[in-house]
């Protein structure tokens, strides 16, 4: 009898699970794919908080984008590709016009969604990650690797190394290792670094670390034997902190380690304590710290008790990155509203907005991001928009910016982008758009 009742209850509940709630008409739906559990949660949580808080800010302070309120829903991916696909399918059709855009926050999920989003006509924003060749908007019409790809990151890292060793001629014969997360994310920079190694004559060794990255003893043994001049770290989550600790254990100088921008946040160095002092990492333009927009968040979100994070963590690197990511998406929708009207827009319309996004100094100042970001301009042929970065160093308490701005050298990255994206277009039978005819 009890069993029958349970079955009945389950049937009713599962039936209800597919009901879509009646959607309000003047809302723009934005899905948040995040991970607050699992091996990568330490880095996933602050990022997701930044994203959530910025959307909240837009609603609380401005009442939405030109009166169109943002409706957001979070879905936990756990950094797993199949869960990410499930989350995307769950959320893509919600709201009056479907998802405005999607941020998968995982290179693996980005790869799996690239084809789906193009079919569904939903832009996929992969800020500072994703596939590097998707910079080519003529082939990847719906991918937006805004602010920088891994190939730009690799180029910037090598530029900084060049500066530290004292010139391009000194680079010859130097040994540079890449300690990378053994997944599409970690492997992305390898072809670029191989190109640069050939060009500058340094010796390049990739060293893989298996998911999730807590086991690095043998890799660091190899590093201790080989004594590379620099170790680039392409890790995420627990892998970063482990790398710093292992480096200390084999007495590899931390100031010869340069992490990518995903390996340069507080959770990556804090667990290692003093051992992390001197560790360097790239910045995806912004670093830690508070800017005018944070004052707004504290006033309109946290003062009302709607903040997602602990107030003390507002302004950390990954929190800020989540916020920037959300802001770029929101500005894409705002730009699209100029053309399509102040109403909820479809993914296809938002794509136009993102492709014509142009954030000048003035606009960034209005948004409260002055000093945090440099101007960014997206076009049909360039979905990256900006390829600048600096280097920061951990002093035990906070991140200090130690370099000027570097701009990734397009003459290095561009041939590779063209080659790989042309291959993708041929594989998938995509006819590249003629960017000179786009308006």
């Amino acid at each position, binding site marked *: 009898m009890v069993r029958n009742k349970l079955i009945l209850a389950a049937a009713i*509940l*599962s*039936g*209800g*699970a*597919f*009901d*879509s709630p009646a959607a309000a008409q003047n809302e723009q739906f934005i899905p948040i794919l*995040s991970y*607050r*559990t699992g091996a990568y949660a330490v880095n996933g*949580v602050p990022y997701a908080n930044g994203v959530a808080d910025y959307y909240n800010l837009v609603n609380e302070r401005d009442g939405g984008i030109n009166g169109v309120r943002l409706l957001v*829903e*979070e*879905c*936990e991916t*756990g950094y*797993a*590709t*199949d869960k990410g*696909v*499930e989350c995307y*399918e*769950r959320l*893509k*059709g919600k709201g009056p016009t479907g998802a405005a855009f999607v941020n998968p926050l995982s*290179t*693996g999920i980005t*790869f*799996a969604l*690239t*084809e*789906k989003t193009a*079919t569904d006509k939903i832009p996929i924003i992969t800020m500072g990650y994703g*596939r590097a060749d998707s910079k080519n908007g003529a082939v990847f019409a719906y991918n937006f690797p805004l602010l920088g790809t891994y190939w730009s990151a690799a180029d910037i890292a090598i530029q900084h190394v060049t500066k530290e060793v004292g010139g391009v001629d000194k680079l010859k014969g130097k040994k540079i290792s890449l300690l990378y997360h*053994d*997944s*599409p994310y970690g*492997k*992305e920079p*390898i*072809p670029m670094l191989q190109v640069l190694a050939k060009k500058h004559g340094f010796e390049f060794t990739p060293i*893989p670390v298996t*998911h999730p990255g807590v086991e690095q003893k043998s890799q660091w043994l190899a590093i201790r034997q080989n004594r590379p001049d620099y170790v680039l770290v392409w890790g995420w989550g627990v892998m970063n902190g482990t790398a710093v600790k292992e480096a200390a254990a084999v007495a590899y100088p931390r100031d010869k380690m340069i992490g990518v921008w995903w390996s340069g946040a507080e959770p990556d160095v804090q667990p290692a304590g003093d051992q992390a002092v001197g560790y360097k990492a790239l910045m995806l333009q912004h670093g830690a710290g508070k800017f005018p927009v944070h004052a707004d968040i504290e006033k309109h979100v946290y003062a009302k008790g709607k903040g997602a994070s602990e107030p003390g963590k507002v302004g950390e690197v990954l929190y800020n990155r989540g916020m920037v990511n959300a802001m770029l998406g929101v500005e894409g929708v705002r730009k699209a509203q100029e053309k399509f009207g102040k109403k909820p827009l479809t993914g296809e319309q938002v794509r136009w907005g993102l492709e014509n996004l142009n954030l000048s100094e003035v606009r960034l100042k209005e948004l409260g991001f002055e000093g945090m970001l440099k101007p960014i301009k997206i076009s049909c042929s360039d979905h990256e928009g900006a390829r600048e970065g600096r280097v920061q160093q951990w002093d035990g308490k906070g991140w200090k910016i130690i370099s000027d701005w570097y701009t990734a050298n397009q003459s290095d990255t561009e041939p590779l982008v063209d080659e*790989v994206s042309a291959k*993708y277009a041929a*594989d*998938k*039978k995509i006819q590249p758009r003629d960017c000179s005819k786009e308006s």
Partner: protein
Amino acid sequence: MLYREAGQFKTTYAADMAIFPIRQDRIALGILLTIAFVGVPVLANFRIWPFASEYLLWAILLPFLILALAAIGANILVGYCGQISLGSGAFMAIGAYSAYKLGTGVHIPLAWLGFAISIPPLPVLASILLGGLMAAVVGILFGIPSLRIKGLYLAVATLAAQFFFDWVFLRVPWFTNYAPSGSVNAPALEFFGLTVRTPIERYLLCLIFVTVFAVLAKNLVRGNLGRQWMAIRDMDIAAELIGIRPLYAKLTAFAVSSFIIGVAGALWAFVYLGSWEPLAFSIERSLQLLFMVIIGGLGSIMGSFVGAAFILILPIMLNLLPTQLGVPLSTETITHLEFIIFGSLICYLLIKEPHGFARLISIGKEKLRLWPFPY
């Protein structure tokens, strides 16, 4: 009353040996197949509840069908032949990567012999089936230790397959056609000139595969070979004494099981993910398949389906529920709750019915047969 077989006489050998000798079973299966083949596509095509969005097809039914197929494969080995395997994920990966290589063209330069083997890109259907065949070959190789070791020891030996192929597909760039990121894209799904694109088409494609393989597997396990497997499972020495060759029985079980798992892997990669990396077939996938078999019922084809539904769909339901009911919980809490409830359910189920859902269903059938006075 509902399930009384009185009056169903079998007058021919054929009737006696039918897959579903009971009329009610045939009717139930007929209805189920009609719903699956006709009902679901029609409802989905006209977007009638619960198919208002593509979610149900894309994110629930498609992975369910493919994983149910893989669970059938795992069940043949674990449930029917009694050889515990933790390498199912590896065999899915072999199916997927072999199908990918065959679908995009194979080129093996044999420089020291002075020539190269080149196979042009094969049609998708052929590459999926050949991918299964490759998995079967590898399955036989990794099944050889089963002649000497059994039980948990064998499970550890098959674990070797899992780790080895995880490593191979990560490390050997030839398998990924030298893709810079190690992530590969499936070729376009073309079958006899028709391109499979929409979720409905993908669903039907997988459904055809699953139905065909389920019927084949059901017939296999009823026949001579299946009886040999079960004899080996129940007591290998006794089986040997009555004239069953353990070598043949065990290796065929490995071959058939790996073939089905390999095909499922190719479908998972080509039809569901479209673009994948070795992590899609990690050790977690192997464990998931083993749990499907155990929860669904060892030695039951239908149990594989129920097990797949339980392991795959129930967590998603648990995850969806709070939002759908409007309970304001953070995604973090929901996910942790999902783990807790799902884990407790597995414990409860295995304590109450260690033989899994298949046994529960057959008890239900027994009770229906004696209804209204079951004892």
